[in-house]
């Protein structure tokens, strides 16, 4: 017997009723949030100071511009290049005969203007040797690359291949490099990874790759950005919560420990940034720039790659775009990212076409996985290499009654 959908039906109905009730509550919170933004605009410096001194249990965006500001869409250059990467992987499977994992990176380069062109690449890499299957410290500690840690490693590789590609392009045209998801390595947050892991994946991994884009920008206009569709972040709504908090300095643990409702800040609690900016912004406009206060971003150091972000209103949704500080501080690059992303979404029916195609190049389907493991088994058998399967794996393959 598989999932008994009839049994779940009643639970889905209960969920729908709950969603409806919460949406009714949203309306009031939403109006109050808009009022709060207009109050803040009059005295943002005071709020800035309050944010810096606040000790909250949630992430609060740093304010790099007036919170309610709306930046109009600039014209996209006539000739420019968008390069995007995405990745997929086959994780280590302890039930399989061979201990290995596979990363598949999809790369797409699209050139617009007088000489339109496209290049698609799909780059699979197999990792199987002992030193590839774990992250090792100089003093002999190691962390196996599998599960969530492999997902983080894949993110680093996506960025590395993207930087490789961008460096190979011999052009004087402006370039925008796009990553799917976040520039913030959320996977490293709260997992208590040892320092050598963070050093290798973040400091000597991801940030090193971001450096390459910054260097390239000195040659010709090159920006890197990441795109988050349908974001669930609340960093900006949390700014409003700080504003509403009656305590100064704000200290959640001191004044409100164990409370989850009824606080002054709960008058905007539960709202999402994208809902707020869906109302504030007009088509194509971007929000103010904000900076992330994630604990992992602190590990980015007082670095040019501090993560900044803005929201942009598209035809069908509000997306979050993240850029490193060196892009955020360069008005020309920021306008380029803003206009190129809106342009990409217009060409891609609501989602950046380069990211969409990079995904298509990277994707590893269920059938691909099965074919991959069958091939591994076949090659091992042909080489008379005998490795054992788990019996659990065998029982999944051979169904019996």
């Amino acid at each position, binding site marked *: 017997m598989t999932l008994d959908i009839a049994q779940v039906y009643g639970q889905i109905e209960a969920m729908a009723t709950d969603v409806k009730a919460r949406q009714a509550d949203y309306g009031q919170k939403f109006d109050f949030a808009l009022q709060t933004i207009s109050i803040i605009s009059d005295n943002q410096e005071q709020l800035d100071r309050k944010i810096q001194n606040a000790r909250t249990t949630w992430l609060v965006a740093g304010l790099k511009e007036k919170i309610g500001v709306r930046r109009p869409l600039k014209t996209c250059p006539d000739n420019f290049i968008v390069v995007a990467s995405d990745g997929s992987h086959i994780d280590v499977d302890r039930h399989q005969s061979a201990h290995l994992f596979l990363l598949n990176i999809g790369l797409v380069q699209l050139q*617009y203007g007088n000489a339109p062109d*496209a290049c698609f690449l799909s780059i699979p890499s197999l990792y199987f040797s002992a030193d590839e299957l774990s992250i090792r410290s100089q003093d002999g500690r190691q962390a196996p690359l599998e599960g969530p840690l492999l997902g983080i490693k894949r993110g680093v590789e996506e960025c590395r291949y993207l930087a490789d590609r961008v460096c190979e392009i011999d052009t004087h045209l402006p370039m925008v490099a796009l990553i799917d998801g976040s520039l913030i390595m959320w996977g490293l947050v709260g997992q208590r990874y040892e320092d050598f892991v963070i050093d290798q994946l973040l400091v000597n991994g991801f940030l090193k790759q971001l450096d390459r884009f910054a260097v390239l920008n000195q040659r010709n206009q090159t920006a890197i950005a990441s795109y988050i569709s349908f974001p669930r972040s609340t960093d900006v709504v949390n700014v409003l919560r700080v504003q509403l908090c009656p305590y100064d300095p704000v200290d959640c643990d001191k004044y409100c420990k164990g409370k989850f409702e009824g606080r002054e800040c709960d008058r905007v609690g539960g709202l999402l940034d994208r809902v707020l900016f869906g109302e504030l912004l007009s088509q194509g406009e971007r929000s103010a720039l904000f900076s992330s206060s994630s604990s992992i971003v602190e590990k980015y150091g007082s670095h040019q790659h501090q993560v900044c972000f803005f929201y942009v209103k598209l035809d069908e949704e509000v997306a979050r775009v993240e850029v490193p500080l060196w892009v955020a501080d360069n008005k020309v690059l920021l306008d380029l990212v803003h206009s190129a992303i809106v342009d990409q979404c217009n060409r891609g029916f609501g989602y950046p076409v380069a990211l969409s195609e990079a995904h298509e190049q990277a994707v590893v389907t269920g059938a691909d996985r099965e074919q991959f493991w069958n091939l591994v088994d076949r090659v091992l058998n042909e080489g008379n290499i005998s490795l054992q399967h788990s019996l659990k794996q065998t029982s999944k393959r051979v169904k019996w009654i």
Partner: protein
Amino acid sequence: MDLKQKIAEVVETSNAEFTAQCYELDEAPALGSMVKTKNKGCEIYAILYSSSTHGMDPNRRIIARGQNAGSEADIYRANPQLSKLLSTDFKALIVGYSQGKAVLQFLPPSPASIYAFVYPCDMNEVREFTQSLNFLSLLTDARLPLSPDEVIAAFLRYASLSHPSPHDFLVKAGKEIAWLLSNDIRRLDSILKRLQG
């Protein structure tokens, strides 16, 4: 064979026909034109009976994009990725092969090789091949997804241009077809009418 002239590559192959993927989108040779490919030292001649342009990924549906475009070319300019996502294929029916200097108008012992390059035949080759018309029975007997009579007529019109007197060639071909289809006047009539076009 001049490598610069290759236009496509065999992606499906059997004794009687092959499918080739064009290197350039929408650049398949015309219906009824003659192409050649290679296998094991012999050149295989075939006549194009169908071409199509479609998405490379059968799971991705092609959608209309040109509502606000000034021309069809504008669609490709605005979406350069399309040239990598679409593919033009053609199917060709094998009508003979050459071994050394001999041109044989029946099926070769082996199909074309997969990934074999496909070249258009020049008019000299077409004229040489159509000195004899024994291959026509391969066309009249073929079971194709479209009317073989259309393909026969298209090929004969095209081949006639390689001869010093296209009219004389068509009369000769018409007589051969009349003999092959002597028991099917309706088909014969249909082909002869198309040859006059």
